[in-house]
């Protein structure tokens, strides 16, 4: 156990911090057009600046736009990005999930073609997994891709596809063999969202925004070269993505806790701040302990990666614990705020610009997005604890 950084790492941290002090994103908390640019354009600009500043995907190989740095440097950058409170990047899903998948499974040509543009934000990706009949039981998906010569012809529908309306490309799962057992007939395809035959319909969410979409495929032609991994072996490829997805979604909620504490110190009931209210005081400490546990747990997993230790069930719990904790924090805020918690964004009397109701909505999405908590528990029980299969 040694939590000290080397002098080089400390210097690197200073360098990153200084860069972030001099570079800020332009109004990414505002939707709509600002300074003549749409939100997507501004978000892409910011991602490009981060990339040019050397702050994205540090561990990727150099030939694909990475810097081949160790996971510790990546962790330093992640921490500094969280501390600077600049928010996520618009291409975060591709950097966090698709990139590592292509590095593991992609052809040389695919890596050269796609990885650099993932980093620069020139191409925004969406994840085409869920379907109307395939949610938690993802492997029962039915979007069909038939190989005709050098092309797949895709027909079917995806749903809950976050960001499909702004995406240039989709990484998705399609059925290429309807006769095989369900896990054996799936392939992993990269699909150009501008292809003829694709229709995207944004769905309005409970928070009033429209980030996730329905995507319809009507005889969409996809080159065979866009197949990742072997034909009908897409489930294996998807598993790589899902491991990275779990880690990506389970990130430490320290920043949210800090905001919650700020609110708790200001919020009074019967003249005392919530931090002195006997009930809320202990709820807050309880979450503080969980936030610290997740921070340290992430260090432990990072260390396993740096020192090439295999690890076991500890690798599987972050998504479940992190998202449930996020939800508990949101609920605590709502409980502290009372009637103020019911005020929507934009209402002049809303506290903290109405961020808490938005956080509450968002916390619900985290718990089912990327595999519900129940599915996480199935995985932990069966693969982590070796309990007999339930199905």
């Amino acid at each position: 156990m040694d939590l000290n950084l080397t002098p080089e790492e400390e210097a690197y941290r200073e360098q990153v911090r200084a860069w972030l002090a001099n570079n800020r994103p332009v109004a990414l908390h505002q939707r709509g057009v600002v300074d003549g640019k749409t939100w997507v354009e501004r978000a892409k600009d910011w991602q490009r600046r981060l990339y040019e500043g050397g702050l994205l995907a540090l561990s990727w190989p150099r030939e694909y736009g990475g810097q081949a740095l160790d996971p510790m440097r990546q962790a330093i950058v992640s921490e500094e990005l969280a501390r600077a409170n600049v928010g996520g990047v618009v291409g975060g899903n591709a950097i966090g999930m698709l990139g590592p998948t292509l590095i593991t499974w992609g052809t040389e040509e695919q890596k050269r073609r796609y990885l650099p543009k993932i980093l620069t934000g020139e191409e925004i990706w969406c994840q085409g997994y869920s379907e109307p009949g395939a949610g938690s039981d993802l492997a029962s998906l039915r979007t069909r891709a038939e190989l005709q010569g050098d092309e797949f012809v895709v027909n079917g529908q995806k749903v809950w596809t976050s960001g499909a309306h702004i995406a240039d490309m989709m990484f998705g799962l399609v059925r290429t063999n309807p006769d095989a057992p369900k896990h054996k007939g799936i392939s992993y395809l990269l699909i150009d969202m501008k292809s003829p035959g694709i229709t995207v319909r944004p769905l309005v969410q409970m928070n009033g925004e429209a980030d996730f979409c329905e995507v319809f495929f009507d005889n969409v032609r996809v080159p065979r070269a866009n197949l990742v991994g072997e034909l009908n072996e897409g489930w294996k490829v998807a598993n790589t993505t899902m491991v990275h997805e779990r880690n990506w979604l389970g990130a430490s909620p320290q920043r949210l806790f800090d905001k919650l504490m700020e609110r708790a110190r200001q919020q009074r009931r019967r003249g005392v701040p919530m931090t002195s209210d006997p009930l809320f005081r202990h709820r807050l400490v309880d979450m503080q302990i969980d936030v610290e546990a997740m921070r340290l747990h992430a260090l432990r997993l990072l260390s396993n990666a740096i020192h090439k230790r295999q690890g076991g069930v500890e690798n599987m719990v972050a998504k479940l614990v992190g998202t449930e904790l996020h939800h508990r924090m949101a609920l605590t805020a709502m409980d502290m705020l009372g009637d103020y918690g019911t005020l929507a964004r934009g209402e002049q009397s809303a506290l903290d610009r109405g961020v808490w109701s938005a956080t509450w909505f968002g916390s619900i999405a985290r718990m089912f997005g990327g595999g519900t908590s129940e599915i996480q528990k199935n995985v932990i029980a069966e693969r982590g604890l070796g309990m007999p299969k339930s199905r």
Partner: protein
Amino acid sequence: MDFGLTDEQEQLKSGARDFLANECSSAVVRKVMAEESGLAPELYKKIAELGWTGMIIPEEFGGLGLGMLDLAVLLEECGYAAMPGPFAFSAGIAASALKLGGSPQQCQRWLPGLAAGSVTGTVAMVEESDSLDPADITLSAARDGSGFVLNGVKLFVPYAHAADFMVVAARINPGPDGLDFFLVEGGASGVTSRIMRNVDQTRRICEVKFDGVKLAQDARLPNRAELLDRLIDAGAVIMAADCLGGSERALEMAVEYSKVREQFGRPIGSFQALQHLAAELIAAIEPARSLLWYAAYAQDAGLEDASRAASMAKARLSAVYSRTADQSVLMHGGIGFTWEHDIHLWFKRARFDDPFFGDPVFHRERVAVLSGY
């Protein structure tokens, strides 16, 4: 940066697991449970030979001079085995009291024996109020010539009936002057210990009466400032390590049982009601392990947040162990309620560990205060 155990610590851990599987099976534990003294002297001799009793004692006093993290790794395995006897309280908590508060002479007098396992010690803190708040510690140590005379009663003192010495928290003057700590030899005139019947039979705790116990001037520990807090830090980590190992074992027993017990024509472990329960328990245990490692490391490295880290670890692991042990018994159904099945050993030990050296409410409050709530 490496947030993890060293190769040596991994070896210490797996060596301890193997050793205890052979030397401290549940049959051995049950035999010691049935004995009045609860001491397991043969086992204690063997662990002393392995160096466990000198783990955190400095080399100049005959120990190995290792840290709290090394000790925590061992204590996790002791919790896993539900090891009976005074090891954690003597080689962990009493050794810490002397290291942190004792004079060189006091250390020289007792630490070599503790390290060799030839003597055991204990710490007497709480009283009838069952509180670690200094204001609730009232045992009197009135001045008597150049020395002191102790009067009062301590409760829940581990293995006091067999201890060669006790470190006793007391007050020279009533009021806010702060606490003092005194070394009292076992069998000193005026000291009587009575074993309190408790549900966790893998441990012995005592009521200790001090009736005009005369002490020389040099019985007083010189470094008393913040000693109570530092002892709470050490005790919290020591107990939390036991909680971690016990949680692991209880859940492991329940999961193994769920693989072989069949109902409705299939193993009960294939039912999601039990799968999800087990998943929730392990998802609480693993991050709590990270809290414990950090808390132990923070003490070894003298980090500023060592007290807060210790309280976080104890608050969380007390609760994790209690819940895991409860639910693990329930996963067994009727067989888990029998005396014959071993699961109740951990079920009861969890309840001992939960309040000892501060329950979750005490430690959460301490975290709140240390965090400036």
